[in-house]
C-alpha cells in the first residue's frame, strides 16, 4: 500500500514535470470518454423512449399503413391504397375490438392572432381508447361528430399553450386551415416521442370532416386496430391481410399494397434500428477512445525515449524493473483516470445540453457514466502497458549512456 501511494506520488510528480505531454494524453482519453458518454446517452435514451412509446401504444394494437415497408414494392409507393371502407371491413373481423382510421396533415392554426402549426389528424372516436390517452378537460370526438361532419377538435397541450396561454380552450373557436373549429376537449400532456416529435403539438378532428371538408380525399394515412385480447395477434394480422387483399382485389401474384404490423413486430423493427444506432454510435466513440489510447501510447513512448536516462538513473539508484513498470503504469492510470473523469463530466454536460436544446431523448445515468469511465481507463491502461514494459526492460548501462 505504501509503495502504491509512493508510486502515485511519483507519477503525479512526473506528470507535473511533463505537463504538456501529459495534457495531450489526457485530452485524447477525455475526448474518447466524452463521446462515449454522449453517444451511449443518445443511444440508450432512444431505446428507453421507444419502449415507453410502445408501451403507450398498447400490447393489443395493430397498425395498418398503405404501401409496403419491405419487399419488392418500396415503402410509400401506394400511399392511397387504404380507404375508409377498409376500416369497416377490418372492424367486422372476429376478435377485433375497435378500429380507427387516421388521416394526418398539417395546417396553419390560429386563434385571435396567435398562430401555431401543429399536426392535424382526422380520427374516429375509438382512437382515444386504442391509444389509451386521457383527456384533461372536455370530451373526445363522438360518433355524432363523425356522422354530421362536425367541425370540432380536441387539442394537445402545446397547441393550448401556444394559442390560449393559460385560458381553458374548451368551447373556444379556432381556425384550422382557414376553417372555424370548436375546441371540445384538451388532451393530457404526453411529452416528446423518441424521434423528438412533440406529441402535445397535435389536433384531432373527426376523420370524416378531414376527408370531406379539409382534404377532399377518400384514402387514409393509417388505421389502428385494437384486438379483444393480445393472444393470437399474428393470426389476427393474417386475417386482416386476407380481408384487405380481398377488399383491394389483389391477384394471387400481386404483392400486398399495405403493411400490417402489431406492436411486437413494430417494436422488433424499431428495437433493431435503435440497437444498430446504439452500436454504431458506440463504435464511433470507441474508435475515438482507441485513437485517444494510441495517443497516450505515442506520447508515453516518446516520453520513455525522452526519459531513458532518468529510467537508467532510477535503476542505478535501486529501482527494480517492476518499480519502473509500476511507475509508468501508474502515470498512465493517473492520466487515463483524469481524462476519463473530465470526459464523463463534459459528456454528461453535452448530453444535458443536446437533450434540452434538440429535445432528443437521452439517458443520463450513473451506469452509463461508470461504464464509460471504466472503458476509458481500461483503454488507457491497455495502451500504457507497452511503453511501460519497454521502459522497465531498458538496459541500465545503455539507458545511462543514452544521448
Amino acid at each position, binding site marked *: 500500500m505504501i509503495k502504491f501511494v509512493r508510486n502515485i506520488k511519483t507519477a503525479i510528480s512526473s506528470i507535473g514535470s511533463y505537463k504538456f505531454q501529459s495534457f495531450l494524453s489526457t485530452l485524447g482519453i477525455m475526448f474518447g470518454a466524452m463521446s462515449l458518454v454522449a453517444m451511449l446517452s443518445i443511444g440508450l435514451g432512444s431505446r428507453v423512449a421507444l419502449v415507453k412509446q410502445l408501451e403507450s401504444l398498447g400490447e393489443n394494437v395493430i397498425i395498418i399503413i398503405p404501401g409496403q415497408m419491405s419487399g419488392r414494392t418500396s415503402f410509400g409507393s401506394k400511399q392511397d391504397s387504404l380507404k375508409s371502407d377498409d376500416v369497416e371491413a377490418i372492424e367486422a373481423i372476429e376478435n377485433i375490438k375497435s378500429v380507427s382510421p387516421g388521416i394526418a396533415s398539417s395546417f396553419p392554426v390560429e386563434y385571435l392572432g396567435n398562430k401555431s402549426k401543429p399536426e392535424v389528424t382526422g380520427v374516429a372516436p375509438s382512437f382515444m381508447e386504442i391509444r389509451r390517452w386521457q383527456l384533461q378537460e372536455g370530451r373526445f370526438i363522438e360518433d355524432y361528430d363523425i356522422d354530421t361532419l362536425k367541425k370540432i377538435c380536441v387539442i394537445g397541450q402545446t397547441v393550448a399553450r401556444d394559442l390560449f396561454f393559460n385560458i381553458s380552450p374548451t368551447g373556444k373557436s379556432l381556425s384550422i386551415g382557414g376553417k372555424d373549429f370548436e375546441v371540445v376537449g384538451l388532451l393530457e400532456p404526453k411529452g416528446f416521442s423518441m424521434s423528438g416529435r412533440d406529441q402535445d403539438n397535435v389536433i384531432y378532428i373527426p376523420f370524416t370532416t378531414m376527408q370531406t371538408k379539409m382534404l377532399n380525399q377518400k384514402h387514409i394515412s393509417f388505421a389502428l386496430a385494437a384486438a379483444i385480447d393480445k393472444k393470437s395477434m399474428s393470426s389476427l394480422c393474417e386475417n386482416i391481410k386476407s380481408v384487405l387483399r380481398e377488399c383491394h382485389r389483389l391477384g394471387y401474384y400481386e404483392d400486398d399494397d399495405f403493411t400490417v404490423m402489431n406492436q411486437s413486430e413494430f417494436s422488433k423493427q424499431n428495437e433493431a434500428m435503435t440497437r444498430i444506432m446504439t452500436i454504431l454510435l458506440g463504435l464511433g466513440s470507441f474508435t475515438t477512445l482507441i485513437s485517444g489510447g494510441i495517443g497516450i501510447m505515442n506520447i508515453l513512448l516518446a516520453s520513455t525515449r525522452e526519459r531513458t*536516462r532518468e529510467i537508467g538513473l532510477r535503476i542505478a*539508484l*535501486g529501482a*527494480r524493473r517492476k518499480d519502473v513498470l509500476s511507475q509508468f503504469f501508474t502515470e498512465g492510470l493517473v492520466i487515463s483516470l483524469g481524462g476519463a473523469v473530465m470526459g464523463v463530466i463534459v459528456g454528461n454536460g453535452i448530453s444535458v445540453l443536446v437533450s434540452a436544446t434538440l429535445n432528443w431523448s437521452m439517458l443520463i445515468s450513473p451506469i452509463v457514466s461508470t461504464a464509460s469511465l471504466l472503458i476509458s481507463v481500461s483503454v488507457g491502461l491497455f495502451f500504457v502497458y507497452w511503453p511501460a514494459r519497454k521502459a522497465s526492460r531498458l538496459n541500465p*548501462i545503455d539507458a545511462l549512456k543514452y544521448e
Partner: protein
Amino acid sequence: MGDVMSIIKMKDIKKSYSEPVLKGINLNICKGEFVAIIGASGSGKSTILNIMGLLDIPTSGEYLFDGANIMKMTEDELANARNKKIGFIFQSFEKFILKKSSVLNNIILPLVYSDVPEHKWRQMAEDKLNAVGIKNKINNYMNQLSGGEAQRVAIARALINDPSVLLADEPTGNLDTKRSAEIMEIFLRLNRQGVSIVMITHEPHIAVYASRQIILKDGLVVGDEEDGL
C-alpha cells in the same frame, strides 16, 4: 588486508562485448579505502565501474561485493544492493539529475525504492546536504543551482542511504579547477568519516587525492600504488 574488510573483491574478471574489454582483473578494495582508477580512454575504466556498481555482469570470473557473490544474486537482489550499499556519482552530473524537480526530490530518489519511512526522508536529506555544504538549497529547483552545487546534490544523493561504497565516474569531469578541488575536499572528508570511495578519473591531479591509484591499460591492471595527498 583480509577478506573480512573487503568490499570489492574481483578475481580474474573478464568482460567482452563485441570484443574483450576486461581481460582478467584481479582487485581487492577494502572498506574505508579511497581508490582512484586511472586509465586512458578505452582502457576499461567505465566497464569495471559498471560491474563494481552491479549494473553489469562479468562474462567470467568471480566478483564478491561486500562478501556476496554477485553471479548468484537475482535481479531484485542486485537492485536492492545498488539501493542500500552503493552510491553512484556520474560524470555528467547535469544529465543525471531530475532538472524539473527540487533539490529535495532529487536527493530522496534512492529512498523511494527503499524501506525507509517517508517521515525520515527530509531530515536525512538535510543531513546529507549539510555534509556537502549546501543545506540551505533544499527547496531550490535544480535549474537554479550552479554546476558545483548540482554536483554536491549528486554527492548528497549518493550518500543518502549511507552506502558501503561511493562509486564516482569522473566526478570533476565537468567542473573547473576550483570547483574540482572543492569536490575532492568533500571526498576526502567523507573518506575520513569512513566512507569507501572508488573514483574513476583520467586526470592525474585528481587521482592524487585518492590514497590508492589503480592503473588500467587495455583491460588489465598494470599498476596499483598506495600514494595519496
